[in-house]
């Protein structure tokens, strides 16, 4: 096969892939629109992730220390103290 013919074949094959992809994509889009409605997107008018995405940074800092054994009785005690004291502690830490 000549270079031009091969290039044309590749170009055709790529176009076919793109056409097939947009067909699949359109079907997916109409399914999403059926579920959420055509305008069910974020305030920006398009889909985006919520601000909670920042949580990932928090958890990647590994907060496992709160499960250390010495903290368990304290947590247990805290959970069972009267509400006003619990609130006072919370306010203190806040």
């Amino acid at each position, binding site marked *: 096969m000549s270079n031009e013919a091969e290039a044309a074949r590749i170009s055709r094959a790529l176009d076919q892939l793109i056409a097939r992809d947009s067909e699949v994509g359109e079907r*997916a*889009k109409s399914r999403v629109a059926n579920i*959420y409605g055509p305008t069910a997107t974020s305030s920006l008018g398009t*889909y985006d*992730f919520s601000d909670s995405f920042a949580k990932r940074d928090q958890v990647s800092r590994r907060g496992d220390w709160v499960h250390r054994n010495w903290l368990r009785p304290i947590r*247990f005690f805290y959970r069972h103290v009267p509400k006003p004291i619990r609130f006072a502690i919370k*306010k203190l*830490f806040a």
Partner: protein
Amino acid sequence: MNQFVVVTSAQGCTNKELLQTAQSLAASSTRPTHWVVVGGSFNLTKLSRHRSIKKATIEITDDLSVPTLERQSSTIVFLRAGDTISPDAISIIAQHTDQHDLIYGDSAHGRARKFEEPSKARRPQWSPERLRSHNYVGDLLAASQSVVAAAGGISTLATLHEHDRSLRLFEVCNTPHRIAHVLYHSSQERMVPTASLEAVQQHCTRTGIEATCTIDESMQSVRVKRRLRSQPKISVIVPTRGTTEVLKGNQVVLAAHAIKTLIDNSTYQNFDVIAVLDSVTPDEGRLAIQTAGGARLKIVDYDRPFNFAEKINLGAVCSDADLLLLLNDDTEIITPDALETLVGILEDQTVGMTGPMLLYEDMTIQSAGHILNPVPFDLYRERELTCTGAQHLLQVQREASGLIAACVLVRRSVFDEVGGLCTLFPFNYNDVDFGLKIQDAGHRVVWTPYAQFHHFESKTRTPKLQTFEVATIGARWRDKLEDDPYFNPHLERYIDIWKENVMGQRSVLDALGPTAPIASK
């Protein structure tokens, strides 16, 4: 009206355990009509006379010829002796029995340690590959009478190992379903799924899977290694720009290193390599790649602005193999039989794409498949390889919603069917979209821990999410992003691990206890 019959095997259990289960049935908001206790030598009359049971009017029997058991409308609930059913479990199951013939759900397990709340086993939706590895569905299964009959009947199923029972039931059911709700309570020891090698071997025989099965007793997981009927040709597609980096102390051209290690170390040798080179590739890089690939190599030049998806598609259309291995240039094969393992998974015609465990240079996890939470994450990224994951999630072959395109093996027919990688995602999410397209077309995507590759991607690399890419992935797959079937809606959102959504792990305030934040009071 649908009637519920609870079936419990009393083999090896104590009176106390049986009574516990009985009391939970009596306390159920929708009570079963019968409780069939199979095996054991208990005095069921005495149990029936127990105050709470008597009041609840549940008929306790060991007689399998009760007419209700034959009724088509009956639902049979298998419950382990000693486990207690949640008060609302049967009424919740009843809401789903019209559409589904086999149901399982989440469970709560004892107290992990003093001062701790019971742990919960949150389960994914129907995952047949995972069920072959271990009994991830738990000990409570609710099946329609027809499914139970087709699987061998109550008397056979009740006394089987739970993994065996689950496999037999799932083989014959049509519409399995997970209910994301705690359906039963059990001991802490039952938190981790169990496995039976014999059960999986028999399952393979029944379903015509030609495989060698082995069990890891410590992890309670069975490996089903399929025998290859043939060794189909693979085209390894390596998109690269000839980058040079230091790997293990040596300066190497990444693509050349990936290709050379694959050729030298893989025990599967029926592959060619298609390197898609950017026009900016330096001559020395090109030469190194040519030397590494030798006669197997075909170079395809790419002279357009960077678009990862387009480069992969270009490589794919230039190949003639039935299987395509999409391989980043910053990778290296670890397990020599990785390609055999991946090809073996594709022996199952319902699997469209499969991928290995990817590890950083320091052997921490780079990717163990994607979760959509709703942001797509690589599960357990940067965790130690010794990390087993929730319910040994990382130790078993299982379905995933997506796989990182740094290393995946995909059927060519499937690649063409879904239109390859979407060129609307030049940088991010082309693999997420690809995985979802494959599943949307009815194929399964399977991740395996038994094939391992290095992916030397920088740990500090934070992919810059492009607004248009997020918008496009949301427009196409918002429903999938927000409810990943291989995740659970009760798990913590926006993180890359499988973690119960409870407070107590991130701040001092959270550590102090499960109370609402001050702002909400």
